[in-house]
């Protein structure tokens, strides 16, 4: 996924979450996580195209409110679409149903096309809402909020360590890579490149374990007792209630539209 990361946005620590002052950033982080999950479940549950278009519009509205940078966000969505286009492009041809067009003797069905559009819209709506609601918060805040939402403590700690050291190890990786470049390494499709990159990966892992031993030593030295205090105390406020009411009403409307279409 390196191709969608620009120089300033290499790791979760720097993915454009300086969106202070944006309306969504004043909500309780737990509200935003729960909203993203609810939105995802409702959207995945719907399959009528107009409903999915409305869901995508809701997600776009959330993205505007979150203050995410437009360019990088669209680039991420395009990268994801490029990923799945291969998968869904085949669907019209492999789903049985009313014939639509025939290409090279293979018939595309209308049902298959609808299914492909369904998946495309669902995936984009959910990812956009997720980036807007959760992706726009500080990774550390995400860890604290998940802890308050009863994610197991060990998993939260594991995640906090990962968030912290992705940045550090990425810098280390870039240093090693630069050293290779200085010695004239240019990656291509040959045994030498694969072996060199393999050694690079091995070295990053070895250094990671060495580093973790020093980290553990330093933590013990400071009396690490097995618990990291998570200081943030969160409180739901009137803003959260208002947001939950508006989003809840929108999602309920989507559900009702879906059900009424299914009944008709």
């Amino acid at each position, binding site marked *: *996924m*390196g191709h*969608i*990361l620009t120089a300033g946005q*290499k790791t979760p620590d720097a993915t454009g979450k300086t969106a202070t002052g944006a309306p969504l950033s004043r909500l309780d982080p737990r509200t935003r996580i729960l909203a993203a999950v609810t939105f995802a*479940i409702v*959207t*995945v549950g719907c399959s009528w195209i107009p409903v999915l278009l409305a869901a995508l519009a809701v997600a776009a509205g959330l993205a505007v409110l979150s203050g995410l940078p437009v360019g990088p966000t669209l680039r991420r*969505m395009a*990268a*994801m679409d490029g*990923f*799945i286009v291969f*998968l869904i492009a*085949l*669907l019209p041809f*492999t789903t049985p149903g009313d014939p639509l067009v025939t290409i090279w003797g293979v018939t595309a069905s209308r049902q298959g096309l609808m299914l492909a559009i*369904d*998946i495309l*819209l669902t*995936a984009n709506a*959910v*990812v*956009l809402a*997720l*980036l807007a609601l959760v*992706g726009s918060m500080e990774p550390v805040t995400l860890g604290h909020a998940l802890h308050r939402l009863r994610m*197991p403590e*060990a*998993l939260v*700690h*594991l*995640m906090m*360590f*990962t*968030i912290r*050291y*992705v940045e550090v*190890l*990425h810098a280390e*990786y870039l240093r090693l890579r630069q050293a290779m470049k200085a010695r004239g390494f240019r990656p291509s*499709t040959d*045994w030498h*490149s*694969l072996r*060199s*990159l*393999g*050694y690079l*990966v*091995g*070295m*990053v*892992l*070895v250094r*990671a*374990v*060495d580093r973790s031993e020093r980290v553990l030593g330093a*933590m013990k030295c400071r009396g690490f007792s*097995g618990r990291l205090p998570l200081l943030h105390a969160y409180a739901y406020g009137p803003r959260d209630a208002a947001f939950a009411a508006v989003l809840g009403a929108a999602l309920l409307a989507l559900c009702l539209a879906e059900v009424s279409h299914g009944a008709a």
Partner: protein
Amino acid sequence: MHIVDGALANPVVLGGAALAAGGIALGLRYLPLERIPAAGVLSAAFFVASLIHVPIGPSSVHLILNGLAGLVLGWAAFPALFVGLLLQAVFFGFGGLTVLGVNTLAIALPAVIVHYLCRSGMRAGNPVIAALWGGIGGALAIALTTALVGLALTLSGGAFFLAARLVFFAHIPVMVVEALLSAAAVYLAARVKPDLFFTLKGAS
């Protein structure tokens, strides 16, 4: 390789989530607090390694390295790779939210299988033998991952079967790349720091 929201049938999504939750719970039992820093830093290392692009002819692939993750982390690969996938979904928009369970299972279960199949090779104490098993593990993990992705898609509807088979064959070059690269990484680690393959394992 990530599956997105909306592509799978509900029973597949729920089943995947339940199995992934079980795997994560089991993995956390192998992680007493003493080992969490090591697991967290290694999880970050695999996250960084997945940013490496290897050229294949005019195109390039990014690494997954779940076989290597299994060799190093054992059962802890489940929580570690879950954290990686969660961060990728939330901050990069890769994969999806409801399919997180299925994606975790597709990446982490092969890692655990490779851990069991190849661990004797790691114990041999010979870097060449370790590298050989590392290569086998690297290729096997990708093969199993594509097979699991294909299975999840096929269970969700027969229309995906052709796509699933194509995904599998399209990943054969990736298997070769991952096998050779994992073998080289294991060879280096086995010479420089053989402990790497045992730090996170053993009785908790």
